[in-house]
């Protein structure tokens, strides 16, 4: 049984405005309206990400100090 966040209600326009503001974006109203229009599809996608990986499951991008090039 997969666990995800699909059960949560979609964010409303005011919540999207608040999240945008918290991200430090001060967008013109036209662009805010565009973001409010497109965000629901992205939000649904993100909420489908499973949240039940094993505690020790590594992300697919790990830090490899030997590969950091020094100036």
């Amino acid at each position, binding site marked *: 049984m997969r666990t995800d966040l699909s059960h949560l209600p979609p964010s409303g326009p005011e919540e999207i405005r608040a999240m945008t503001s918290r991200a430090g*974006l001060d967008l013109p109203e036209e*662009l805010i309206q565009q*973001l409010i229009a497109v965000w629901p599809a992205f939000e649904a996608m*993100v909420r489908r*990400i*499973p949240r039940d*990986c094993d505690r020790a499951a590594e*992300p*697919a991008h790990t830090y490899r100090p030997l590969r950091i090039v020094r100036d």
Partner: protein
Amino acid sequence: MDPAFLTIAELSRLYDQRELSPVEVTRNLFDRIAAHDSKLHSFIRVTPEVALAEAQAAERELMAGRRRGLLHGIPYALKDIVETAGIPTTGHSKLCHDYVPAADAHLVSRLKAGGAVLMGKLATWEFALGGPSWDLPWPPARNPWNPDYLPGGSSSGAGSAVAAGFVPGAVGTDTGGSIRGPAAVCGIAGLKPTYGRVSRRGVFPNTFTMDHCGPLTRSAEDIALFLQVIAGFDAEDPGSEDAPVPDYAAALTRSITGLRLGLIEHWYADGAHPDLPPAMSAAIEILRGLGAVVEPVQLSSLRDYTDCKTTISIAELYAIHEKDLKTRPQDFGRILRNRVLPGALIRAEDYVQALRWRTVLAREQAMALKRFDALLTAGALGVADPADPNQPDRLVSSPSITMPFSVGGLPALNIPCGFSRAEGLPLSMQIAAAPMAEPIVLRIAHAYQQATDWHRRHPDLH
């Protein structure tokens, strides 16, 4: 002799036999571009002075018997997110309209050292993501099979230019399918190599964890020749793999008898273009006839792979473009802006969970590749899209059949396997294998192309 549709292998042979010269071919292809690209918009910029100087140098060296490599004297072009010293690199964006890099991308250095001939910089979706867009400084490229249709993206100009016979090969980039998609809908070959096989240094980033550079050509054999020149370790690309580069052309000579191929049919069984499943079935029968053993295999859904990849991508994309989105958001095209701004609302835990899920999905593919030498599926779910500015944005709504192998970081090659009856547009097959197993992918594709002629069909531009 008209060199427009000669392959890289054929051009090299004719150079060796002194039946064609690099300068003659370069001039001929520029004439063809001048005659037809006003309809296709595949090039943002042609570089005739650079090309003719490189062609003349190649001609002198080849005449003297000094061959520098497999692409010596071969014309090619670059997606315009690949940096070129002294030549503008725009990302097809107003934001980089006047950007002139000081240095070449690593792969450009390799192509120069190998004596290849740079014909110009190619159209792309804005920063390899936002497209097709009609509100950018340059128009979107069109599909040479029918200019009322698009060539896919984001390596749109590369797909269009190679299919149109403007260049025998081009460099594209592929984060979720941006080499393979254009290859599929333009009827050519396009390889996304293993992650880390070709350096990304000097290429505008899209998604650091999934960006790949690779070739688009008209045959699998040419992919092998092109890859040989650009593959290899780069200590200054943190994602580069320090693994030996095999002789890719040598792999083409081996039979595919006995190879075990896992067919991922459920990815295209529903919702695909109606001509695609029969074309795939015919291709599979040909592979069986060549001795391969083809059996079904089940992986996670395209929806899962697309969600995982796109969540990772938009978070990284937002980080890349945050400064410009905060200071000059109107300078982005609408489609790119609407695809990147949502990244501002992704939480850190969403991004990390998507990266952890990527490991799970990649492991699923690795397990399948313990049973099979390669995986087969469709190269695209449909044919080219109409060139309609009012088409809805399907980045999130429509699952992608190329994204699974982006998530896995596996080598994946698209080759043509038929044409749709109604539109007369190309259909495509996708072949993937384990990390660094490009030789197996190329071997299967080449064997298929020795038994079929889809890759020998070309659009009539008149």
